């Protein structure tokens, strides 16, 4: 009787039932879509962070160059570049592996210092470098030496080219933490234990494609030819070439030095406390957690994050609130039209709570109907976002973010993982998805039930208040 009565009654007021269910469906679909998009944005943010940190890294320890420090290795100027002469013109070329502008180095022994702290699961050293190559031609008859570019009329014009790519020197032990993992190498092989100071390299697939490299090719780093042993799938903000740490130290004339300590913490809840311990052990270093880096992410991804977190959330709440209110009011109206019916049921001996249960049941049924429709709509919307996979860029803050004096100030928060070429902000391209999570569907179902209870509650309140005598008093 109970379910039959509910089913027949909802069918009798089909239009109204559909309006209530549809309103709830829209609100719930918005919740699912916004939650999924928000999860997608967070996933994209993690991707951005992983591209700079490496998977498994919870924090990095770096050192910013101070005003009085030499800072990055100098390029050496044109006077130091190898030259050759032909037909009166001077050919210059230079290939240098150097740290990024604005970053300094740490002693390699700091890795063991950090690794010995409690709460640290693993610590590895790394060198974040840039390989810059310069080549140019200075025509003959130029009396301005290495700094001059003017050419008398009728002679060959000077021409120069500058090229650079990023190089990460990484530890290759079993427990190493860092920007490249074994599983990212999809072609060839990862470094073996024997490769610790060998002239070998793993190259990103994008870089390999751009420079027609494959496993077995040679890649020139700091003027040395390295064998490409593997190709890796890395995100757009990661390094282009990876070499064993000792090899990178030798090529960059930085033996015994590192730019970064990559740290893995034993538990996510300990990140903050471990960061404090590291800071205490290495007072001159900069400790950056993923939370710190997340604050420096700007660009389209950051905007998307703000959009889903604030506007998206409030839009969902508003839509749900309106849906609940409309559902409640419609149920009250429906109960008001059934005053005689409920009065008759009470005349038959139905207790108020039985009548209330009937009305609440109708509300719940509508809530579940709206919830199911909302889940279908929300899942479809999330799937559409994932299928479209819009590209978003994330810009990770520059080395001058905390300016201790503008262009010349390097004190304070240095970039995590070492700044990339010339100390500028780093752009990472990610594709937005909207992954569905089980708890989102569960929340949607609970909201559906809540919506039904609210709608039914409004109606039940009206039903509980009605006096059968008023309902049944005949007129005429």
């Amino acid at each position, binding site marked *: 009787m109970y379910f*039959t*009565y509910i089913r027949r009654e909802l069918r*009798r007021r089909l239009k109204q039932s559909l309006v209530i269910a549809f309103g709830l469906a829209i609100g719930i679909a918005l919740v699912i879509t916004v939650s999924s998009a928000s999860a997608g944005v967070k996933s994209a943010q993690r991707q951005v962070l992983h591209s700079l940190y490496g998977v498994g890294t919870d924090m990095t320890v770096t050192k910013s160059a101070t005003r009085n420090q030499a800072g990055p290795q100098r390029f050496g100027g044109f006077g130091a570049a190898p030259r050759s002469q032909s037909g009166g013109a001077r050919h210059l070329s230079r290939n240098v592996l150097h740290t990024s502008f604005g970053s300094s180095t740490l002693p390699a022994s700091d890795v063991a210092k950090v690794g010995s702290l409690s709460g640290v699961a693993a610590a590895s050293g790394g060198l974040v470098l840039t390989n810059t190559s310069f080549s140019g031609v200075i025509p003959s008859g130029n009396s301005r030496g290495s700094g001059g570019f003017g050419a008398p009329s009728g002679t060959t014009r000077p021409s120069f080219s500058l090229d650079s790519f990023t190089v990460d020197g990484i530890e290759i032990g079993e427990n190493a933490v860092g920007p490249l993992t074994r599983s990212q190498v999809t072609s060839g092989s990862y470094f073996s234990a024997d490769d610790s100071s060998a002239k070998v390299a793993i190259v990103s697939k994008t870089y390999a494609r751009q420079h027609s490299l494959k496993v077995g090719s040679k890649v020139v780093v700091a003027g040395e030819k390295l064998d490409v042993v593997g190709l890796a799938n890395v995100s757009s903000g990661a390094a282009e070439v990876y070499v064993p740490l000792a090899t990178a130290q030798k090529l960059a004339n930085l033996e015994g030095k590192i730019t970064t300590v990559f740290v893995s913490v034993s538990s996510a809840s300990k990140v903050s406390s471990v960061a404090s311990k590291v800071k205490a052990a290495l007072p001159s270093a900069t400790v950056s957690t993923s939370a710190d880096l997340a604050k420096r992410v700007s660009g389209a991804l950051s905007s998307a994050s703000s959009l889903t977190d604030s506007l998206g959330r409030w839009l969902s709440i508003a839509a749900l609130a309106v849906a609940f209110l409309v559902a409640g009011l419609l149920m009250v109206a429906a109960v008001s039209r059934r005053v005689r019916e409920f009065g*008759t049921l009470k*005349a038959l*001996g139905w*207790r108020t709570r*039985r009548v209330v249960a009937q009305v609440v049941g109708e509300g719940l049924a509508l809530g579940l109907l709206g919830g199911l429709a909302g889940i279908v709509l929300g899942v479809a919307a999330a799937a559409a976002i994932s299928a479209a996979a819009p590209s978003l860029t994330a810009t990770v803050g520059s080395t001058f973010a905390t300016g201790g004096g503008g262009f010349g100030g390097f004190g304070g928060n240095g970039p995590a993982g070492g700044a990339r070429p010339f100390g500028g902000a780093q752009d990472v391209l990610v594709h937005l998805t909207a992954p569905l999570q089980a708890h989102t569907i569960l929340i949607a179902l609970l909201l559906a039930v809540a919506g039904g209870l609210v709608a039914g509650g409004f109606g039940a309140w009206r039903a509980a208040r009605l006096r059968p005598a008023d309902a049944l*008093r005949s007129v005429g």
Partner: protein
Amino acid sequence: MYELTDVRKSFRRGEATVQALDGVDLTIDKGDFLAVQGPTGQGKSTLLLLLGGLDRPSSGSVGFEGRDLAKLSEAELAGLRASEFGFVFQTFNLIPTLTAQENVETALVPTSVPVHERHDLALAMLDELGLADRATHLPSELSGGQQQRVAIARALVKKPRVLLADEPTGNLDEKMRDEIIGLLEQLWVERGLTLVVVTHDSAVARRATRLAVIENGRIRESEPSGQVPVSS
């Protein structure tokens, strides 16, 4: 069975206060067939609602089997309505979304009759009133007379001791009216009911054994004329 003493009932209608009953004294014995007659708006329906425990008097007592209905809790009144009182209304008041059989079953919901027995009892009651072939029809698919018979079946399926009918023939044509009132009379005799019928129709009132006339909220008894007893 019923003992009403100085019963008064007033209620508000907008700004005005309506005195529906103004000092009613009435005794209804077990097995009586009482017709309550009077012009429109004189308190007839109000009296019926008080007898059925659906309303409480503003003052006075409505005694039923020694208990003052005015002092009972809502749960106790609901219990009496579920077992002792059956109601029949002028507008039938059937649930429009339920079939004839399901409508009759609604009267058994608040009783202790098991779910699987309700079905059979409802069908048997409809059969007794000649409506077995209409059991699966919705009220909209029944004639006025058939709807009222379904309503009577609903009122009687739980075997109440009192049947309270408020203008049961008010919405029926003459032929149907005679049919329904005849049916009520028959059931009154067969089941030993105490039957109270509110009506403004003299033809209906004449069938009762007692007649009470309400005027200006007060009641006076009169002799019904031409009552034709129905042989059992």
